[in-house]
């Protein structure tokens, strides 16, 4: 007791910062009046509320038990969060098949357990399955091979 709960302090700060960002952005919007609210009224109200709540959480964090800080999954963050972004960047250009193959491969690198060959095999299997299910069987309007490849092909 008596020490700082870092998780809570950080959480409070995160809420204060997010609230402040939304609040400042809301300043650029028309507030209107209580009777005829503008687009900025409701967000501003919420932003102020979030900052207050965040502040209260910070305040409370000084009176609680200390909680050990755990490790962060840095490698996971890069590859796991990168996977959907990569898919979004390439699905139209490369086309569905190569894009989903590379996305799976990318995600597989987030772990340390999978050897490269295994990762490739896994990605091939996932690609095959997804192409058969989504593109062939369900006929989703995905282009299997995109325009980038035809340029390279030439």
């Amino acid at each position, binding site marked *: 007791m008596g020490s700082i709960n870092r998780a809570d302090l950080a959480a409070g700060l995160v809420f204060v910062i997010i609230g402040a960002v939304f609040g400042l952005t809301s300043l650029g919007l028309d507030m209107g009046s209580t009777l005829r609210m503008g687009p900025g009224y409701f967000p501003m109200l919420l932003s102020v509320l979030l900052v207050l709540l965040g502040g209260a959480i910070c305040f409370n964090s000084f009176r609680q038990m200390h909680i050990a800080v755990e490790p962060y999954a840095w490698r996971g963050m890069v590859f796991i969060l990168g996977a959907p972004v990569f*898919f979004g960047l390439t699905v139209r250009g490369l086309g569905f098949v190569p894009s989903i193959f590379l996305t799976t491969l990318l995600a597989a690198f987030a772990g340390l357990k999978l050897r490269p060959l295994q990762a490739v095999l896994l990605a091939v299997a996932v690609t095959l399955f997804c192409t058969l299910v989504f593109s062939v069987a369900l006929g989703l309007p995905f282009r299997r091979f995109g325009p980038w490849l035809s340029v390279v092909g030439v």
Partner: protein
Amino acid sequence: MDLFSNLALGFATAASPENLLFCLIGVILGTLIGVLPGIGATATIAMLLPITFQLEPVSSLIMLAGIYYGAQYGGSTTAILINMPGESSSAVTAIDGYQLARQGKAGTALAVAALGSFFAGTVATVLVAVFAPPLTVIALKFGAAEYFALMLLGLVSAIALAHGSILKALAMVVLGLLLGVVGTDIYTGTPRFTFGITAFADGLSFVALAVGLFGIAEILRNLEGEQDRTILGAKLGSLFPSKADLKAMVAPMLRGTALGSAFGILPGGGAVLASFASYTMEKRLSDHPEEFGKGAIAGVAGPESANNAGAQTSFIPLLTLGIPANPVMALMVGAMIIQGIVPGPNVATDQPALFWGIIASMWIGNLMLIVLNLPLIGVWVKLLKVPYHLLFPIIMAFCSIGVYSVNSNVYDLYAVAGFGLLGYILLKLRCEPAPLLLGFVLGPLLEENLRRAMILGRGDPTVFLTRPISATLLALTVIVLVVVLMPSVGKKRAEVFTESD
């Protein structure tokens, strides 16, 4: 009595061999696609819609209804197994369902969800058949003021969704409300917080939020330590619920069914509250509220029943008014129109075979679901034995496709990554995602109806008190608030908090 001849007509229509077959195909396809991570009921229906266009109108709609229930059930399965809900309702199931799965009781959670859904589906089907017209009258009494009061009640109840600090839960609700505001303001057309990205003009994608906040954050958490383990924290327990489990689920199932049926009839977002409300109710009524969030049977049985009952009764506005209550129903309307049936208030009299056939197929579909899914539980649970380092790349591939397929919008994929990061940070800071999700769903409805009520009431704030339904709901809100803030309850929460750390 008319009802019996109508139901007889319905069952005669729905039970014809080819309609039974299409219902079965729909249920199977819905389950199989819905069970893929990140793909919820809306995405599943959107994907499978075109295959139904080639069929006869009745068969097409029966198959679509089958797909809908199947997808809902499939979505709950993914929520329980890997904490990846594709729909707001299954987000609630994920809270306790996933914890049960980690304790080796995935089979129990899945069976409880299936049984609860079936029971709720049966009751709600009867409700739809018997009371559709009078229930419609009630639904139409809900205007902007009533919806605002209802959403407020839902938000206040949301505090119970979290098992940690009240303050943090409140902050998460408010953050959710703020994220829900992102997009074009419907009253003035002003873009808000879109950073100039037109793709966010219609708001952030719910699926992206749910997948990121729940599923991806959980994957990242699992990647922190050694990675050759499986999701299973403990030894795999019995596949089927024990007698005690079954006994524990009866009351929540009954209450969930009642809540879900009531909320489901409200077009315009009533249904989203059903499973959240049920969870709150069960936690309040439970003798062991501290178990909630750590694998309470009631936390799965109640919301799942509410969810399925709501799914059933949300057909009421569609069948009696021709108005879709949610995006899924809008897809059904589209299917009807393609088939040359424009739904309207006369569908029941003009197309009795279609109307009663759909109602009968609701029950048949639910029956098929339980027959199909109880044996499948064994298969699903085996998935948990797949080593995690093989499982998560597959999950990432599916959820990328699922999120993208809803709207072919690549920004939804970037949002998944953003929400995944946010979810992970919040997880590290011990903030629970469920209240944020509820805030996100309700935020736009809350603001929209508040402003609409003020416009319709010519700027007079007393509209909320002079309309009886709205006033009652607001009174309930105050009562809930008092109960939550009462010292004794507060103390209980504090104990829970200390224990959980």
